[in-house]
Structure formats: C-alpha cells, structure tokens
C-alpha cells in the first residue's frame, strides 16, 4: 500500500474525481452491507416458531360442545360458545390490562379491575376500553374445530356446523 501523500496529488483534479468515485463506491458497499446486516439481525431475532401454545389449535369435534355451552379454556385463553348450530370463540383476555376474565351469568367479568362484558363480549362496565375480540373458528378437513387466534373477526359472526 502506498500512503497517499497529501498536498501534491490533491492538486491534480483527475485524481480528486477518481478518489471521489472510489469513495462513493466504498461508501455504497459499506452502507449496503450495514443495512443488510441490520435487517438480517432483525429477522434473526424475530422467532419463526415459538415455544408456547400455538395460536392456531384444534379443540375437538363439534359434537363435543352441546348447544348453549360457554366453555372457557383457560390455558388457551379463549371461550368457546355454541348456540344451536352456531359456534364462536371469544377471547378471555381482558382488554384493559390483560387479566383472564371469568365467565359469569351475564357475560364476562374481570377480577382485576372490575371490567364487565356481556355475552358477546361488549363492554358493559368498568375500565375496559374495547370489547373482547372474537377469533376465527373454522372446520378443519379432519372434522375438528380449529381456532385461529391470529385472525380476529367481526363480533357476532359465527361458524355454522
């Protein structure tokens, strides 16, 4: 490597242009690499598979749920509702601060700060800011009911079984 000795060469305009081009090229390479690295590391840190409960899970055959049932699955944090041939899954995570709401006669109530919801999850009292979300329920090809907690649906839309 030949150390670039400063003033003499700088006077040479061609050398300056060449140097500028080279600097831009190096800068582009370095900056590009840096961006790719940063982006890759972000992708790396985001888990592609989690170790907890999966967000889409099967809860069994429709026959397992008699009409009128309101079954709270605490480990899944979801309440399975069946009314005639209509089925739905309502979240049991309080929209206020994340406690698990319990199923009451009138709907749901939260033990932490007293939020109350009606049977469809609409807020009827307490500090809860939003209604309880409904999750997509579908009939899997093997005949079992599948709940997908990644997809929220309009409250009041049921799966007909």
């Amino acid at each position, binding site marked *: 490597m030949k*150390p670039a000795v*400063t003033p003499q060469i700088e006077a040479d305009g061609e050398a300056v242009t060449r140097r500028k081009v080279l600097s831009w090229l190096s800068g582009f390479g370095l900056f590009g690499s840096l961006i790719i690295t940063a982006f890759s590391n972000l*992708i*790396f840190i985001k888990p*592609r598979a989690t170790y907890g409960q999966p967000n889409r899970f099967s809860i069994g055959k429709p026959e397992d749920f008699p009409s009128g049932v309101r079954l709270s699955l605490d480990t899944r944090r979801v309440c399975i509702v069946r009314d005639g041939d209509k089925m739905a899954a309502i979240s049991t995570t309080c929209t206020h601060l994340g406690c698990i709401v319990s199923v009451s006669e009138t709907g749901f109530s939260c033990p932490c700060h007293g939020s109350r919801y009606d049977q469809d999850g609409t807020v009827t009292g307490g500090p809860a800011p939003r209604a309880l979300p409904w999750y997509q329920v579908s009939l899997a090809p093997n005949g079992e009911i599948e709940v997908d907690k990644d997809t929220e649906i309009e409250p009041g839309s049921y799966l007909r079984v």
Partner: protein
Amino acid sequence: MSNQTSTSPWKAMIELPENIWHSIFRNPLPSSDLGRASTSFTNFFLHLHPVKVHRNSLRATFTFGLGLISFFLFFILVVTGILLMFYYVPSTSQAYDRMLDLRGTVAFGIFLRNLHRWSAHGMVAAVFLHMCRVFLTGSYKPPREFNWVLGVLLLLVTLFMSFTGYLLPWDQLAFWAITVGTSIASYAPLVGKQVKFLLLGDSTVGQEALLRFYVLHVAVLPAVLSLLVAIHFWRIRKDGGLSRPAEEDELAPQPNVEVVTGPALVMATSPAAAAAAKPVLQKRQYGIQGLVRGPFTKIGNVPDRSVFSWPNLFMAELVVFLITVAGVLLVSLYFNAPLEEPVNVMHPPNPAKAPWYFLGLQEQVSYSAFWGGVGIPTLEVVLLLLVPYLDRKIAGVGRWFARERLLANSLFLTFVVVNVILIVIGTFFRGPNWEFVSPW
C-alpha cells in the same frame, strides 16, 4: 460551528439538523493536516490512534494486519455471540435443542452459528500468527516487553474463551472435549483438583459446568479480554508505535509540518508548535506529557517518515476489516459448524477429539498426562512470558528474520514447528483409541 449562539428559537429550529450533526462530528472531512490530526483525536473511536503513523507500520508485508484481524474477529465474535444469546439457554436439557432450532428454524441461525464458530477458530489462528510476527520481527524488545507479556496473556485468554465456548452446544464433542480438558487441569500440582472443581462446580461435567462455562464465556472472559486488548492498544502508542528498524528514523528529514493554530490543537501541541520553530532535532522533549518518558512526543517535531493517520492508517484498517469480514462470511456460507450427537455420558466417541488447536496438547497428553498437559505447556508459557526479559540485546528490531537474531528466531520457529507438527499428527494421524492411522 458548535459554539454558535442562536438568537431566536426559530433559527435554532432551522439549524437543528446541522447542529446535531456538528455536535457529533466536530470537523468536516479534513482537507488540511490540522484537520487530519484533529479528525483523529476528536473522534472517540479514532482517538486511540496516533495522529501520525510511521510508514513502516503501514507496510502490509510488515504486519500482515494480523493484530487487527484478531481484533476484528473478536469484534465479530462479540456481535454474533450477543445475537446467539437471544436463543441460547444454558441448560443441559435445552442447549442441544436450541442448537437444532438454530439449524432448522431460526432465520440466519445456522449462519450466525457458523460465523461465530469459524471466527473463533480464525481468531485463535490469527492471534498465534500475530505472536509469530511479533517474535520474528523482534518487536518484543524494550520498550515493548510488557506489551509482549500482555499479548501472551491475550493468547491464553483467547484459548480459554474458545475452550469455554466449546461446551455450550452440549453435544458429544463438547462434553468429551471438556471432560478431557478439565481432567488435564486436575493434573496441575497442588491446586489441580480444586481448579477442576471450581471450573465444573461438581465432580463431573454437568448442568453446573454448563452454567459456569456459559458465564465465563459470555461475561467474565470477554470483559477480561476487552480490558487486556485496550491496554494492549494503549501500550502500542505508549511504546512508540509499531517497531521499526532504528535507521528508518534517520532518513533524510521530510518536513511536513503545518503551523498549528486551531483551537482544538492548542492544548496538545503548543509545545510542539513552539519547538517546530527551531530547526533542531530534539531527541526528547517535555510538554504537558513531559512526565512520560519515551519517544512518543515527537509529533510535528522530529523530521521523520510518518504520515497522517487520517486517511492512511484508517483506510488500511478498514480494508483489513472488510477482508476479514468477507473471509469469515464466505467460509460460513460454505461450511457448516459441526454439531455431533447429543451428549451421552455413558458412551464417549472414539476417538474423542478436542478442537484442532488443542490437538497438539491432546497429542502430548497421550504420552504423559502431567508433562504433556501441565508441565510442558506451563514451561512454554513461562518461557514465552520471559522472552523479552531474557533476550535484552536490542538488535534486529523491526525487520523480519534479522540475521542478528538467528538463534532466537530458530529457537522460536522450532517451538512453532513442533507445535504445528503435533497438531497435524493429532488432527490427521490419530484414529480410534488414539492409534496411529494414515489419513490416506
């Protein structure tokens, strides 16, 4: 620039981006020698460097950038290591599963593991070669004796880092390499058994050992290594930069000094500036740093063959960094870090081989556990540490294979060659039951 006082809030708002920029980067890209100097010492990351650096130090064939490569590999290891920590769990029941997840599930998981593993191997090699460079150019001679000692310590810490890292995947290789390694430690006289117990936290390699090795690997040793590296770098400057032949300084003077006026430079160089007015060579001079002896206060004073660090040194460093990165990236792209069977404490693999850089040691150990594992290595390390205090003659410094140093260089090369031969034998010529086999 930065001390501009704004008259109205509005103006302050307009100048905000510029002010922020200037508060971070005090100087524009330098176009004068003053600027070049001030770029070096007003930047946190650059101020470790001298403002000017001797041409000899920039010659690629003098250093081959080995020290820098070692440091950059360490840097890569820190970055990839921290990223891997996001997924790693130091538990005997989970560690191996996490390795499988890195290989299968995590995006870039296997790639980062490869980077980490190959950089570690590269770092051991680079540090060792760096040591060879320093010895063969006679660069450990006074005043650089202590920096050589630091370097030897850094080599040991690097090896220990690598050793502790080997356990973490919790596969057969890990388990048995560490079992063998810590058993070697137990042969050390008097304290051996205690050292082994302290390392393992138990009588055998298990959960406690994994946790301890993890802590050593991710916290204790990196901290020690960083500290030692910092001192190592600092000493380079304090010991007068990289070594060079005495005659290099005495070439025809090339006055290359601007009159220094910038406010940022006043503190540092005003004595130098004053001295520059006198056309005499001063061997030693006393300024603000006058309490510190040595040849380092020559900046701008003694006519010499130095050039400004900005851009010469920094660009060279950047090139070395990029070559290092490109190297480990390419290696990691094509070679996967090995992952052997999950630990089976009842069934050692045959042969149970340590990583290659410990195979010389393992080969020695196969003759005698005490001498091969403790006696000779200790002797070697002690000799290495004492080298600059035993070899005091200042001759042949800063040149490769100087004739004046024929004896020292031959002795050292013998040491290197013997170790390399042992490693080659251990790697290629040893089969099941550590019996001699032909690799062909």
